[in-house]
């Protein structure tokens, strides 16, 4: 049987794991796909290549398809979110100098950290983020919006240069995806203060995206890609597979990283300060459990609202999320489906059972650090 060649763009970060595993463990081949993973040097380049048709699909930062649908930044193109590739998995860290100013702030306490940062003599904080349309940047804005005294200057820094940017004093702090937080700690230039989930417990981080017109013309290929990625994410989330996953990712040509850089994100054992024992962070990076792959329309709506979109923009953001394809393509391989495609974002403080096609499914907590909730379904 001849295989369908599919070009899929990615940026080499630990959370591109579902794509690498789909290829390396043969989940793509089982679906009759020759998955060609095409490494991209920047998010702008990846976006352009997807929009110009040089890529069929791509791993994207979750705000990217939303921003493109609304028409913010860069190329105008209609890009759909097919499914979520990963939830959470980012870290916030500060330079050793700033850490010394802050004194003892418990790891992962977003409110205490905000107070400590506001109380510093120098009220200005230059924070490195990977891309303007990233969950990192949105969480940073959302978190600091309740601290009017704190002046945040957001600076876009390519993640592989984040540690150097801190070392050179170009930024005072950063919000970055793994392994680049661990790299900065490893080089003893920074200290990690919290993870993304301390601000939003269930933040969609990367998504699988494709051009709307490509999806319309290649429904079958899109379905096969989604199934392969779904199976890969299920494999990745099984705890017993973690050591092997680290090995496969380290050996793969796609990441070019040593195992000790990949392990923290997958195991959740994060070293927050140079030469100290790791702290275990539960649900640090999630691929599959608790309907992690389900592209909630309400997540896209939250992103759009944080980007400053009006009602019409939020509608567009929700329309680019293909819950229809998710339901249609993944029900046959055992994916449990939530009853609704929207939820009240921020409402869950504990694991909660909700109605699903198979009776009920357990959703993970999705609360925000300040307890706010966002209901986009009322309109």
């Amino acid at each position, binding site marked *: 049987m001849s295989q369908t060649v599919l070009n899929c763009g990615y940026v080499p970060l630990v959370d591109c794991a579902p794509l690498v595993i789909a290829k390396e463990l043969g989940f793509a081949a089982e679906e009759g796909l020759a998955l060609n993973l095409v490494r991209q040097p920047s998010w702008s380049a990846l976006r352009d290549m997807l929009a110009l048709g*040089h890529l069929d699909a791509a791993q994207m930062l979750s705000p990217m398809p939303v921003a493109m649908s609304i028409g913010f*930044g860069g190329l105008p193109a209609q890009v759909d979110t097919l499914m979520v590739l990963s939830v959470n998995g980012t870290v916030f860290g500060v330079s050793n100098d700033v850490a010394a100013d802050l004194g003892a702030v418990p790891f992962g306490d977003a409110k205490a950290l905000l107070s400590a940062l506001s109380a510093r003599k120098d009220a200005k904080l230059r924070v490195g983020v990977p891309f303007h349309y990233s969950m990192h940047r949105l969480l940073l804005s959302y978190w600091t919006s309740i601290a009017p005294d704190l002046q945040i200057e957001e600076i876009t820094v390519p993640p592989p240069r984040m540690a150097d940017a801190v070392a050179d004093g170009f930024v005072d702090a950063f919000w970055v995806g793994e392994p680049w937080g661990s790299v900065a700690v490893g080089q003893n230039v920074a200290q990690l203060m919290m993870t993304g989930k301390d601000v939003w417990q269930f933040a969609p981080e990367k998504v699988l995206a494709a051009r709307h017109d490509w999806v319309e013309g290649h429904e079958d290929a899109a379905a096969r890609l989604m199934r392969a990625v779904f199976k890969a994410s299920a494999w990745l989330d099984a705890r017993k597979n973690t050591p092997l996953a680290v090995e496969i990712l380290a050996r793969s040509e796609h990441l070019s990283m040593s195992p000790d850089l990949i392990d923290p994100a997958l195991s959740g054992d994060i070293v927050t300060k140079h030469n100290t024992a790791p702290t275990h962070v539960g649900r640090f990076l999630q691929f599959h459990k608790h309907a992690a792959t389900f592209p909630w329309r309400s997540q896209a709506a939250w992103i759009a609202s944080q980007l400053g979109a009006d009602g019409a923009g939020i509608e567009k953001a929700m329309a680019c999320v293909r819950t229809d394809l998710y339901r249609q393509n993944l029900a046959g391989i055992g994916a449990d489906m939530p009853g609704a495609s929207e939820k009240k974002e921020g409402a869950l403080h504990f694991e909660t059972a909700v109605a699903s096609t198979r009776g009920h499914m357990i959703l993970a907590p999705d609360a925000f650090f300040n307890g706010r909730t966002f209901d986009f379904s009322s309109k």
Partner: protein
Amino acid sequence: MNQNLRILVVEPDPERVRAIIDALKDAGWSDVKALAHMSALDRTVKEFAPDIVLIDLANPDRDTLEHIFDATETSKRAVALFVDQTDDTLTQAALNAGVSAYVVDGLKMERIKSVLETAIARFKIMRQMQSELDAAKQALEDRKTIDRAKGILMRQRGLSEEDAYNLLRKTAMSQNRKVIDVALALVTAAELLL
């Protein structure tokens, strides 16, 4: 078309920078600045205010550049991208998409002139279209304001439409102002009074 065009080259490799600058100078562009490190990018973009920025497609600083442009006036800048292979379909697709991103074969310096000229011409057309669109939108707005001002005069002073317009025009001429300014003042005043 080459005069007074400020070009910024973002490229860490000094030899490549030299080759690019030489090629640009040969092509008649002399106002060129090169930058190796991103730490000075923000300041350089603001101070040098380049009309066009050349950056390798593979350069990860592209995201930083884009953010800086987002924060300044994106629509007034062009970005040219170098790739190592000539890819005419991609170049064409980028041009057709009307983005301020153009692809140049970085290794063939003799092509820089022709590709940059195409890029700049295209960029000028885009800018022209944008300003025409803005002008058209403004004209429509002005028209609405003048209609409202005429309506006020017709109702308040019992004038015909033509007389109302003539009154606006005469007032504008006698005060050495534009009709739209007089109309706007009238509409604003009416909103306050009525």
